């Protein structure tokens, strides 16, 4: 317990953490309670001592070293999730599974629409393969496979 009046949180009062009502209550109490006034003085002294003990000197040049490190970081490329082959493979597998499920469902509901969509996907896949293949060869193969699947579905 801090102080002789346990219902009052004098530490929170000194920290400015009480609401206006609580602050006013302690103010009124302090006007009539010399023990709590003494307690407040002791707490203030302790707080000052702790602050001074924590106020250790900071190493020279630390700020400059931090800025330098941030500058070096700015010029370094952070690998993104899309650069990670494992993440990429999982994303592609998930997308392929979703498309396959959607097409299967569509085939059951409407075989004609399924064929039409399959043909369209085959054409898109083929065109996308040519465009993307110049930039990322691995994606080109994937899109060709996708196109072939679409062609099969169309047939």
């Amino acid at each position, binding site marked *: *317990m*801090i102080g002789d009046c346990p219902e009052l*949180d004098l*530490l*929170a009062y000194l*920290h400015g*953490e009480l609401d206006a009502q609580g602050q006013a209550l302690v103010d009124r109490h302090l006007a009539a309670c010399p023990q709590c006034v003494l307690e407040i003085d*002791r*707490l203030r002294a*302790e*707080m000052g*001592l*702790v*602050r*001074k*003990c*924590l*106020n*250790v*000197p*900071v*190493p020279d040049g*630390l*700020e400059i*070293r*931090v*800025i330098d*490190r*941030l500058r070096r*970081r*700015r010029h370094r490329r*952070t690998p*993104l999730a899309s650069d990670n082959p494992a993440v990429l493979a999982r994303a592609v597998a998930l997308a392929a599974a979703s498309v396959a499920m959607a097409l299967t469902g569509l085939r059951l509901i409407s075989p004609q629409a399924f064929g039409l969509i399959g043909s369209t996907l085959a054409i898109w896949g083929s065109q996308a393969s040519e465009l993307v293949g110049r930039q990322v060869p691995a994606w080109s193969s994937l899109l060709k496979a996708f196109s072939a699947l679409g062609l099969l579905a169309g047939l």
Partner: protein
Amino acid sequence: MTHQSGDYNWAELVRDHTAGLFRLARQMLGDYQEAEDVVQETFVRAYVALTRRGLTVHTSTRAWLAKIAVNLCYDRLRRKGWQETPIDLATHPGGAMSVGAGAATGWPGWSDEGPEQAVVRCEQAAVVRHQLLALPPNHRTAVVLRYAQDLSYKEIATVMGVPENTVATWLRRAHIALRRRLEQGEDGS
């Protein structure tokens, strides 16, 4: 309070928060070099989070950086098995146990004391430092966040992931423990 990457001037941010973060890490880890490493890592993580991942900060910048630093300190302490953080009080900067230490360390208001006052102050400072290190890690972290970083109870609660009442309790207990040690020191026991 919400901040995004574009809101930050990094040179200003480093200037405003380096000292506080260093004192926080220094007190938690008890080692100057490790504290410096934590400060640098804190800013790098903040930078990556804001500029590369587009994070939006919903609390005060001071509290957010403190949270990163506290987590980094906890990681290091965990790796060390939460051992007591040893500090050589006689030799580490800011811990000189001699008359006039205030002037040597640059502590505000200490340089113009007489020799007797300075001795008493040094003894009290040593007791406080020992007591801070003897506190349970959570209590110590709350004290450092309050007195070195000037965080509110709400911000400390956010940083430490506990309710505000818990923060208030930890701070009260830390003061009680500190007072007990100071009184023991005065009694010469």
